[in-house]
């Protein structure tokens, strides 16, 4: 209890040092600078307000699209001293690079070159290679499992799902890549960020280099940049459990699914605490007491826009029925018995430590400054510390009731 009290004490030693500078930047973007001269590096990041929120389990392969669209090109000014790494989160995507302070100008020239998009014919080798790798990978039983479940949530005939489902497919021609690039760059809400050993004035100079190449005209947002309007659960799903068979696997997978929470939902702090307790209980029941599973996973409880929330349990096919009974009994116990104060306090400590790890580390400061989900972490830390046991219990009883979930079981196809 003493240790817990200490952990919960304010420990934001770096909060002031890492306060971000933010200013609007023409045309329509934002410059964020986290000046931190303790770090002998500069992290630069360009991010755009489009992500994989319409995808699930990386099915959309937006990261591949990114690398094809821009920074994989070998332009004449491409720097070999700075590697821009494409990344995709559920609601933003962009490029990040680490650089020595003296390499900043070269990095910006390189980034501008990427964004202007040079596609020499030779790069089509990579496109074919990506497609080949994807074709080979999709036969892996684990990928088949994921895709089979994803199809329950997203209509595979929906063009929004289909266009990018096969990287380098029919839709991914050079003109199509150019179109995506133009669409991306005309989005409002892009952010250029610098963190580390760089002055604000220097960052402003570098940002001006970038601003010159970004289009001023605002195009209408393409479908993949609009808020997620995909159905969270397919209309085909009813209350009855769904069973899917997948080839060449030795493992079964049980999934409990329902809609998750959007970030602005006031129940988010209670949800984070309740889920932490529920996952710990399930781990105890399934792994520690029964030895039935190696991994218990969950995904999508809180996202920028509502997404499917899933609890996933892999196991031996012969123990599926037993596992269903165990999980549903545990969920029912949450609904009937609630949660204990000790359990919730431990969840508070765990969440506090995780959020502190994210927002104290200088390397994460920029992410915090530009990412709406991460930016709430300080606020969430406070809310998770103060939300009452009653509120957490009320949420847990209602949300985790087993009848609120759709159950999907993915089984090996008999040979």
């Amino acid at each position, binding site marked *: 209890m003493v240790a817990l009290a200490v952990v919960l004490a304010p420990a934001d030693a770096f909060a002031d040092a890492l306060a971000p500078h933010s200013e609007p930047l023409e045309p329509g973007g934002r410059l964020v600078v986290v000046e931190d001269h303790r770090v002998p590096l500069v992290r630069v990041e360009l991010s755009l307000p489009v992500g994989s929120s319409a995808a699930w389990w990386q099915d959309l392969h937006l990261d591949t699209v990114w690398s094809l669209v821009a920074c994989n090109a070998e332009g004449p000014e491409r720097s070999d001293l700075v590697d821009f790494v494409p990344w995709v989160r559920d609601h933003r995507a962009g490029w990040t690079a680490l650089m020595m302070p003296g390499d900043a100008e070269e990095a910006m020239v390189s980034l501008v070159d990427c964004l202007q998009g040079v596609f020499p014919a030779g790069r089509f080798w990579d496109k074919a290679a990506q497609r080949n790798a994807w*074709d080979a990978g999709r036969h892996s039983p684990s990928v088949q499992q994921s895709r089979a479940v994803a199809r329950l949530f997203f209509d595979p005939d929906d063009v929004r799902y289909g266009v990018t489902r096969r990287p380098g497919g029919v839709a991914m021609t050079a003109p199509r890549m150019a179109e995506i690039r133009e669409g991306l760059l005309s989005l409002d809400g892009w952010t250029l960020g610098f963190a580390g050993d760089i002055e604000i004035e220097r960052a402003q100079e570098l940002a001006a280099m970038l601003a010159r190449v970004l289009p001023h005209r605002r195009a209408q947002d393409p479908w993949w940049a609009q808020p997620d309007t995909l159905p969270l659960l397919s209309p085909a799903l009813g209350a009855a459990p769904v069973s899917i068979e997948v080839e060449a696997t030795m493992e079964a997978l049980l999934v409990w699914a329902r809609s998750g929470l959007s970030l602005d939902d006031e129940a988010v702090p209670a949800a984070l605490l309740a889920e932490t307790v529920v996952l710990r209980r399930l781990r105890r029941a399934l792994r520690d007491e029964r*030895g039935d599973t190696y991994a218990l996973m969950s995904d999508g409880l809180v996202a920028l826009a509502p997404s499917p929330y899933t609890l996933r349990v892999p196991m031996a096919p012969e123990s599926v029925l037993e596992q269903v009974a165990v999980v549903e009994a545990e969920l029912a116990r949450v609904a009937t018995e609630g949660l204990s104060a000790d359990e919730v306090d431990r969840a508070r400590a765990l969440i506090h430590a995780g959020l*502190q790890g994210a927002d104290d580390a200088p390397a994460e400061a920029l992410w915090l400054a530009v990412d709406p989900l991460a930016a709430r972490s300080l606020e969430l830390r406070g809310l998770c510390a103060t939300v009452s046991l009653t509120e957490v219990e009320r949420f847990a009883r209602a949300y985790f009731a087993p009848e609120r979930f759709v159950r999907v079981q993915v089984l090996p196809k008999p040979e």
Partner: protein
Amino acid sequence: MPGPSLCIYAGTLLAAAWAQEPAGVVVHAAPPPAETSAGLLEAELSNGLRVTIVSDPMLTHEAVVIRVGVGSAHEAADEHGLAHMVEHLMFAGTERYPREAWWDLQDGLGATSNAFTRRDDTTYHTVLPPLGVGTVLEMEADRLANFDVQHEQLERERGVVLDELRLRYGMEPHARLGVRLQRELLGEHPYGRPVGGEAAAVDALDIAAVTAFHERHYGARNVHLVLVGPLAAVPLLLRIEALYGALPAGQRPTPPPPLAAIDMARRIDVGDPTLRTRENGLVWQLPPDRICAEGEDRSDCDQAYWAGQIMLALLRGEGSATIQVRMARIIGGGVPVTLDVWRSDQGGLVTLYARRHRGVPLAMYQFGAIMGALVGVVLPIKGQPTFYRMETAVRGADTDWIDEQAIDEVRASVRRHELARSWDPLARALAIAAGTERGATELSERLDGLEAVSASAVLQLYQDWFLDVPGVRVHVR
């Protein structure tokens, strides 16, 4: 029973710590480098347990890593899977900290714990906010000293381990291929068998074997405790001595023979009916990936270490895409080439794979290569199997892809990542425990070694690793 004395045999301490130097401690230390406020303390308890503490006030979290020098390569013929099983059972709980209480306490501290087993070692690691490290040290010492597994605990954990094996190998054809290839390449060498054992071996493990394995290998001489974070080193060292000083010394296991002693076949054919790809591979041996041994000249082995890192990074195409472009042009468009590197205490393997999906006609790949030829390719398409083109790509007569500029690019990339990684207490603690890094205060010195690597040193490695040795041809069907 070991006595309470400590012997600090090397390292640097924070200036503030000198005043707290405990009586009877022998210190050989140098002041910390001017550019860092971090301090490094290395010590050995009288029972042989090694301790490394990196005190870095810039860090916001603490990492506790315990590396036990026993892995799957030390298992006897009837012990396959034991090292990994013992790792799991270390979380089964003790009389003082039953499993549930152990996790409750960890959660209450905001700590995240896990462990992994490799061929040469088993590593337990925890990351937590400051101030909880004393409790974690107590919990770790308790489970090292009081490992007492009951039959029902073993049975439960057997189920967990079997499920882990199914997830690792039963779901991924390429993971199964990797196991088969390792066995074909390395034969009876202990590195040739899978780390977690196979299902039948795991099924056969009993409580007597588990207990005996722990007793034999979890002695203090075989344990390295590494702490990294905003820590006060000397008081912590005294606490560690109190908690760990009474552990039995035990023995270090005999290391497996060097991989270099193996006479690998020139050609291997492996297959898996679930694979949807045709693959060709080339495999070469690598020396161990460790920094200097005691007594070695540090600047020499530092440079050798970095030259090896640069050589492999060049092959991966990091920093410079020269070799990737070369491979794409020679091997053919649309054939993804991947590089797998595995290194252990007694050597390693580098494998280059070219992978082609069965369902796509070869002509499609050749078309990509011809397109490449039209825009300035070096070699024409000769219609050779991919395998020969891979050899040409890596072992061609010219070495123009290894030059000062390419090395500078890789060097810059490595330097950036080393500096960035210095903010991660767990990454630092794991690298120190694994023997691939010494400690925070020596980062600038290590980077000096990186700067000193010459093109001729990298070219020499290229000669030694790839040109002087033909490599093993692997055909996957």
